[in-house]
């Protein structure tokens, strides 16, 4: 999308993302302690340190895919022996790192002093970060988050909290910096207020026609991944929510003649956002919500905001560790999806079966059956890979999406 066609929030997003990556490289060069993290490592804790920057390889990989160089980076990893069956984020990141950041829109990521992975979204992240740990000789801290089939248990929360304390101690030992609780609390306040605006932004999907598309929300997730805990994070999401609100009031909708309200399940297909969005819009269809973006700022089993109460930051951060879709079981996923489908008035669901993300995908066949049999919601399963365009077939996907729209029509006609 050209700058001229972007919304104010879209332009602001480009600017702050560019600044964030420039700041990352600059501060790393000036001697800041650099941490590479999995997306849901509690980044707010890092603001308790005076001179620390963090980078998020998954987000960087998504950006590569979105900018059209995902497959190029994947091929670099494949040439050094990494199987094409492995997660495309991992292949992009490993390939990019092995090639010194070449072809990356941000010139790669600065070399880390510490790697912090976890196993809540996926255990293979630990294996992925182990690759860097071994190749770069950098320490690797593993956060172990027990998978949950019901609401997170107190025993698990306490275990996670203990690890957070160990993480702080590890950084203190490695960086020589002291942790400041007040700064970490302040960072969590920024995150919390930013998420309030994020939820406000997403709520405009309830409007008929929807005030947003899921594709907008996918793109706008980026600050959540790399800028949590900052005033810029809060300010950006306020701008986004305010602008969207004004557009809805003004009758400015992304798909004005919206006839099909769809819901997306899985990671965004970063290489297809614009194409998929515009093609669906031509048919009067809008993917108005997604599990991927709705789970932010929640706890497992619900897409409602789980606010920070201003008290113990460790408890809050630990409590929200299972909120992303992958760290909890099918029953909880089902409950949240059902809530979203009913709240948003969804006509059909697109289950994106994603070879690169088995933890997200592996329950989808049962989920699809449930949504059809118990809620009567038509759905389709499409094959995608979130970052490797070579594993995507536009023709096949759109044939299925068209079939979904026909199913919705048939249901309406019945």
């Amino acid at each position, binding site marked *: 999308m050209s700058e001229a066609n972007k919304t104010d929030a879209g332009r602001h997003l480009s600017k702050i993302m560019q600044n964030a990556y420039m700041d990352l490289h600059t501060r790393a060069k000036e001697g800041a302690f650099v941490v590479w993290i999995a997306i849901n490592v509690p980044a707010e804790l890092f603001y308790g340190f005076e001179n620390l920057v963090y980078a998020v390889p998954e987000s960087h990989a998504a950006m590569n895919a979105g900018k059209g160089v995902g497959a190029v980076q994947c091929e670099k990893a494949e040439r*050094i*022996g*990494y*199987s094409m*069956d*492995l*997660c495309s984020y*991992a292949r992009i990141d490993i390939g990019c790192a092995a090639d010194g950041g070449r072809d990356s829109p941000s010139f790669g990521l600065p070399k880390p002093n510490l790697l912090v992975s976890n*196993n809540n979204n*996926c*255990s*293979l992240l*630990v*294996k*992925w970060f*182990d*690759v860097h*740990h*071994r*190749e770069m000789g950098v320490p690797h*801290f*593993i*956060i*172990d988050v*027990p*998978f949950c*089939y019901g609401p997170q248990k107190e*025993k*698990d929360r306490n*275990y996670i909290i*203990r*690890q957070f304390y*160990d993480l702080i101690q*590890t950084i203190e030992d490695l960086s020589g910096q002291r942790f400041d609780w007040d700064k970490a609390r302040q960072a969590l306040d920024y995150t919390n207020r930013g998420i309030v605006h994020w939820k406000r932004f997403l709520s405009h999907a309830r409007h008929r026609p929807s005030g947003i598309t899921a594709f907008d929300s996918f793109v706008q997730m980026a600050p959540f991944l790399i800028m949590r805990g900052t005033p810029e994070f809060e300010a950006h999401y306020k701008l986004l929510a305010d602008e969207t609100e004004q557009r809805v009031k003004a009758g400015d909708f992304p798909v004005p003649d919206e006839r099909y309200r769809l819901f997306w399940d899985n990671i965004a297909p970063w290489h297809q956002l614009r194409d998929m969005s515009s093609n669906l819009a031509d048919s009067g269809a809008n993917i108005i919500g997604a599990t991927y973006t709705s789970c932010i700022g929640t706890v497992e089993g619900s897409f409602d905001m789980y606010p920070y109460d201003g008290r113990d930051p460790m408890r809050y951060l630990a409590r929200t560790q299972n909120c992303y879709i*992958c760290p909890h*079981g*099918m*029953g909880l996923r089902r409950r949240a999806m059902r809530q979203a489908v009913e709240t948003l008035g969804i006509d059909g669901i697109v289950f994106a*079966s994603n*070879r690169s993300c*088995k*933890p997200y*995908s*592996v*329950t*989808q*066949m*049962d989920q699809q059956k449930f949504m059809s049999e118990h809620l009567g919601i038509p759905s389709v399963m499409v094959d995608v890979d979130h970052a490797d365009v070579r594993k995507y077939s536009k023709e096949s996907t759109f044939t299925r999406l068209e079939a979904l729209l026909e199913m919705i029509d048939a249901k309406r006609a019945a």
Partner: protein
Amino acid sequence: MIEKIKALKGQGKPVIGCFPLYPPLELFHSLGLNPVVLWRLKGEGGQTGESDRHLQNYTCSVARHMTEFLLSEESGAFLDGIFMYNACDTLRNMPEIIEGGLETAGRSVPFFNIHIPMVPPAQTDGDEYLKNEVNRLIEELEACFDRKFDSVAFQNSVAQFKRLRMLYLQAEAAVANGGIGFREFAGVFRKAAGMPVEQQQGILEPLLSQYAENSKNQDKAGIILSGILPPPDAMVEAMESSGLRIVGNDIAALHRSYADMPQPGAEPAAYYRDFYFNHYPCPTLLYSGDRRVQALLERCQQTGAKGVVFIGEKFCEYEYFEFPYLEKKLGGQGVQTLLLELAVDDEDHSAAHGARIEAFAEMLSTS
């Protein structure tokens, strides 16, 4: 496997199916249960029709065959309980898929689940967490099966499994010096798998008593097999007929399962602390990653292996993330590597790998 489970049922003890590979077998045994590790279930009908209704075709064969096994009326119906601990991203979703499938079929089986801490012990102390998990499991098993934990019985079970592991290591040593062929060894393992520990010992002991230290085939190039499942017989045959001698293995269902010799004791939490945290390295035990490379290099040195053949289980991301680095490190030590990949239906067609195996054997013989 189904015939073995039926036989176990005939003994009057509840049968508990376990996955993945390193469950607390001694504990189940001490409570008067028959634990059966649900692994390598291909061949129990061979098809995956029921599993295919629940799992995409890019899940590994282990998950697909296990789901098929558990949901089929013929096999799954004989289990009195299912136990799992956290392993990979696919398997952690299995309980609800299986429970849902069973519910649809009008059946139910109690599920038991514990979380093994995956933190490196030097980083975070997971002892207390593991202790609570083990104690909770004991309480749940006691309540479900009307049993009472007995520390003397536990010590006896620990001794039985230690004896079994030692027998496997002796058999493996016999394979290394050529007294027993790997195919024969793997066949014995397959025969014993799923049997009570005492019967497994009864299968291994005669094998070892018959074996004579004759150090056959010492002129052949030694290789180590690595992967999560033993290769199919046809593949082993191709290796042995190509002039390769399998002198050791780093296979999850074999060496990684029995190489561990935890300190015997009467207290389950302490025993399993040693069992899990000092376990022979496996990609599924995330905290063992740093020890894994060294362990494989040492196995090559101990056995004099000139090559390592990785038996890649397609879609097992844990294993595949490690292959490139292992290949590099092994190569640095002069150990050649070959990666063979097996998918859900490939076992019957593994002879197709013959040409690559022959080429690898030629390379080793001339290196």
